[in-house]
């Protein structure tokens, strides 16, 4: 397996950096929180299983058939940038996005790759690191009816608080927003509100009359947060997709992914800091073209409606400049098709799309070689993506946290922003 020496990657990154003449100091400079950070919120659309880069944002029409596959590239709204024919709506919003085509990583196992992408740290046997969303929730602080960090429809492994406390775990809505009559799990009262009020009072009395167990601040805070969420009109409204116009709902598509993206937009509008939309089904080891295009329903048409509508909608509402949108997954997929007409895990090259707060519109960074096997120019690693996300959110990723064992750990151990995609 060919291997890119990390030193090469690093140096390359720095050389092409805007301040490359500053040499090594550049990284320190870029590690600082950007005062002009514009993203107030972030939505990560996570394509669980690993989307094929060659069949989405990095097509290789000139490669042999067993590599280029069945899809044809089409022009996008960015000059010279082509994407897959099944992403035609997305093609038209690429001028509002930035594309990184040169992400590379050695981690080809789902768990390890997910940990790497979502935390910016290669997995360690000694420590689970907090995911981007948990760090963002921690930095945002408490005091808000809605949870700071929400997972739709449910959380995936390594998207949680890691060594941080449970307060920074994502809140899973626990149900499918595309289902008829969807409700956030356990948010609705099983009894009329007046009776719940009475129950609440009775619980307080039971606790107050019993002196056997001392009050605990964390329990009280947890209960308080639950009560606030239950009784918050804003929260109920934010979760309520029926308040959207039918045309809007249709534009996102009635897939789980589509309605999840719409819900993510509503939550960001309501002030939620970080939303992860998790979409399964991207681990395409077999019949990849069928699964991606016409499969019932095709992954790409679903993604196309959902993602393009998300970007367009945020932009039309004037929210795109304050919302960072990231489209990514575990890793890319093997350039060469396997005997089952699928592509296997390929972490050496993958694509990530960024849009919104702090991101330069229409930017394209990095290329892969003729077969989509390895980055040819501008290689970046998952921690560089993480650094870019933190930077857009104004989070100082050189900052140190402490593990419960008292070990000091930086928010990111390595990694620097990708200046080419930043404003």
């Amino acid at each position, binding site marked *: 397996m060919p291997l890119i020496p990390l030193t090469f990657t690093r140096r390359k990154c720095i050389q092409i950096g805007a301040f490359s003449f500053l040499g*090594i100091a550049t990284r320190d400079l870029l590690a600082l929180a950007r005062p002009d950070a514009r993203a107030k919120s972030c939505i990560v659309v996570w394509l669980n299983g690993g989307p094929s880069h060659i069949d989405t944002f990095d097509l290789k029409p000139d490669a042999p058939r067993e590599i280029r596959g069945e899809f044809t590239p089409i022009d996008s709204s960015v000059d010279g940038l082509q994407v897959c024919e099944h992403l035609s709506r997305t093609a038209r919003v690429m001028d509002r996005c930035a594309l990184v085509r040169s992400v590379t990583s050695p981690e080809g196992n789902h768990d390890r790759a997910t940990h790497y992408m979502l935390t910016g740290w290669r997995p*360690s*046997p*000694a420590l689970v690191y907090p995911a981007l969303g948990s760090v963002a929730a921690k930095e945002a602080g408490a005091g808000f009816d809605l*949870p700071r960090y929400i997972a739709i429809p449910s959380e995936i492994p390594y998207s949680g608080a890691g060594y941080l*406390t*449970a*307060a920074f*775990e994502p*809140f*899973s809505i*626990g149900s499918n927003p595309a289902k008829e009559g969807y409700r956030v*799990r*356990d*948010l*609705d*009262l*099983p009894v009329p509100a007046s*009776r719940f009020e*009475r*129950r609440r009072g*009775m*619980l307080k*009395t*039971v*606790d107050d*009359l*019993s002196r*056997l*167990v*001392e*009050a*605990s601040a*964390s*329990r009280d805070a*947890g*209960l308080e*947060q*639950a009560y606030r*969420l*239950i009784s918050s009109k804003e929260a109920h409204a934010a979760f309520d997709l029926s308040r959207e116009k039918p045309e809007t709902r249709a534009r996102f598509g009635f897939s789980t992914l589509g309605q999840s993206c719409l819900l993510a937009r509503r939550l960001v509008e309501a002030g939620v800091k970080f939303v992860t939309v998790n979409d399964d089904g991207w681990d395409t080891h077999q019949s990849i073209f069928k699964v991606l295009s016409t499969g019932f329903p095709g992954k790409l048409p679903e993604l196309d409606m959902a993602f393009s509508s998300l970007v367009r909608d945020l932009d039309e509402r004037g929210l795109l400049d304050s919302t960072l949108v990231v489209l990514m997954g575990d890793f890319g997929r093997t350039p060469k098709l396997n005997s089952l007409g699928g592509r296997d895990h390929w972490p050496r090259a993958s694509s990530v799309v960024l849009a919104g707060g702090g991101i330069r519109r229409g930017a394209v960074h990095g290329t892969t070689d003729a077969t989509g096997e390895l980055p040819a120019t501008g290689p970046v690693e998952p921690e560089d993506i993480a650094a870019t996300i933190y930077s857009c959110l104004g989070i100082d990723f050189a900052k140190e946290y402490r593990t419960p*064992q008292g070990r*000091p750990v930086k928010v990111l151990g*390595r990694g620097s922003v990708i200046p080419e995609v930043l404003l």
Partner: protein
Amino acid sequence: MLLAITLSAFLQGSEAPSLGLDFTNVVLPILTRSGCNAASCHGAALGQGGFRLSLFGNDPEADHAAITRDLSGRRIDRAERSMSLVLRKPSRQLPHKGGRVLPADGENYRTLRAWAEGGFPFRENDLRLVRLDVRGTEQLTVNAVYSDGIARDVTHVALFSSNDDGIADVTPEGAVTLRGSGETAIMVRFGGHVAAQRVSRSFAAEGERKPAGGLPLKGFIDAHIGRALERIGLEASGEARDDVFLRRVFLDVIGTLPSSGEARAFLEKPDRNRLIEDLIARPEFDAYWGYRLDQLFGVGSKRLGGKEAAAFHAWLRGRVRKPWAGTANAVLTASGFEPETGFYRLTGDPKELSENTGRIFLGARWQCAQCHDHPFERFRQTDYFGLAAMLARVRQTDSGIVHFPRGEVTFPKTGRDAVPVLPDGTPGEIENDRRPMLAGWVTSQPQFRQAFANRVWALIMGRGLVHPADDFRASNPPALPDLLEDLSRLETLPELVGAIARSAAYQRAGAAEWNRADDRFYSHFRPKALDAEVLVDAIAAATGIPDAYQGRPPGTRAIEIGDFTVPSYTLDVCGRNRPGFEGSLSQTLHLLNGDAVQPKLAAVEPLLLHDDSRLVEELYLRTLSRLPSKPEAEHWAHVLEAGPRGEAAEDLLWALLNSREFTTCH
């Protein structure tokens, strides 16, 4: 001449012969003390600013080469030695991002300069550090005893840290300041060795010594704890009430609540020792401790397969009353399709197997040692790979678990096969099954017995004598070493659980005003949040409405599932198989609004036949295992009377199930 003066200064006037300018024994400790090879500086995996040292100096040869030879020796100046970068950077005569870590007027700098002027030697002597000798309470003095038997004062190159800075602070120079009442250890690190110096400050005011106790000493546990409380001037809480003890001992010994009948019977004739004996004899004891063993091994069908998981679970449950050493030995040497091969089916990676061995049987975290020698711990990377090599040939095949004739693990530093060897240096088998020797070594370690006793103690008492319970290491000494040693002589769960439950320490009431600050001497009982399975079973027991689990006969309790991957939203959201789970918003919502509680409130229906006071009594007995107090009885009778009665009773049950008291073992 200057050199001789400097070195004698380094040795601080001791009569000991000089260590010379030895890199390992003299120079490296200075770099370590100055933080140069810490993980946040040049000790980072990629170094810092292009200069990489081994983490905390665990590889002296590589470090010597990095300083004297890397970059064609640019870091030293052979012509003008005192102008070497290795001197000018840390003293900040040249810009240094790490700051001025070695002031040029300091003794350590002078020693480093002497070493430079002496020609950057590597080996000056063959002395090995044998042990550290720490003395003092306000100003610690550290003597390093070398293989020549001579002690040398190394206080000013040793590293100090407090295990609990709420109790004591220590300066880099080794001066201790007591901050609060209690006892902790100051850890001293030097040359790859670690030593602990206990420091304490009494809870009692000057001149006033509080008597320890409130309860008679009941056995060795109380003798040890009593002495500690006396030493530290702590007065223990009194004895817990009978009803409190009842609920506590049911939850801790068999993991479930007493029925209201059992509660009434005990409260009428409260014989504590008899109850403990009865509980240990019940089959629920096997179910509950079988569940704890499942948890320890991580039994689940996802990694094991359904049949294998069920077999391993049943086998572990069958081992509950048998000696732990026998269980460990059987597990570590299991072959073929024996149920206990489950251990080897959980993972096929010898490194992970070795880590599991350390965690499950020795309460140790070996993961760090895969990549580097643990800072200052005795368990080194070579130990890690020596042990992994002993598990390198275990394979899962068509004939079950076999010891294969081939297979090794690679030692990353050399890229060669790791040699099977025990941490004490005994070479392992090469050709035959390598595991019996490993099992023999594991089960003969004092730490093996201690880790098990400590785990059981932690589950029952709420905090391990070694805390966290799976973090045995030299720099994390037990709070009461003698107690741990005595406790570890008990070989089976019935003996351990019985001894702990009978102790006065276990039977104490909760924290009192005067001992609330104590978190490690068991002066009061520490309330614990119920674990997911126990909580869910408690709700089922209190309401009399059982849960149903996929593929399990009706009436199976959560602790009896024997598979942490059987689907259950309620168990997942309550933190199933996540020790130390702190609760979550989803869990709170699920208990307030969800189907964990709501559908079970129908349990009040048959109780409505009783009069109000009996109804309230029943609800309290079923949920909190006690009778309501007078204010409680009066208040709820009033609420029921105001009605509507059915709804009010349901809501009271709801409130009780969500209460602080119900969700805690206290």
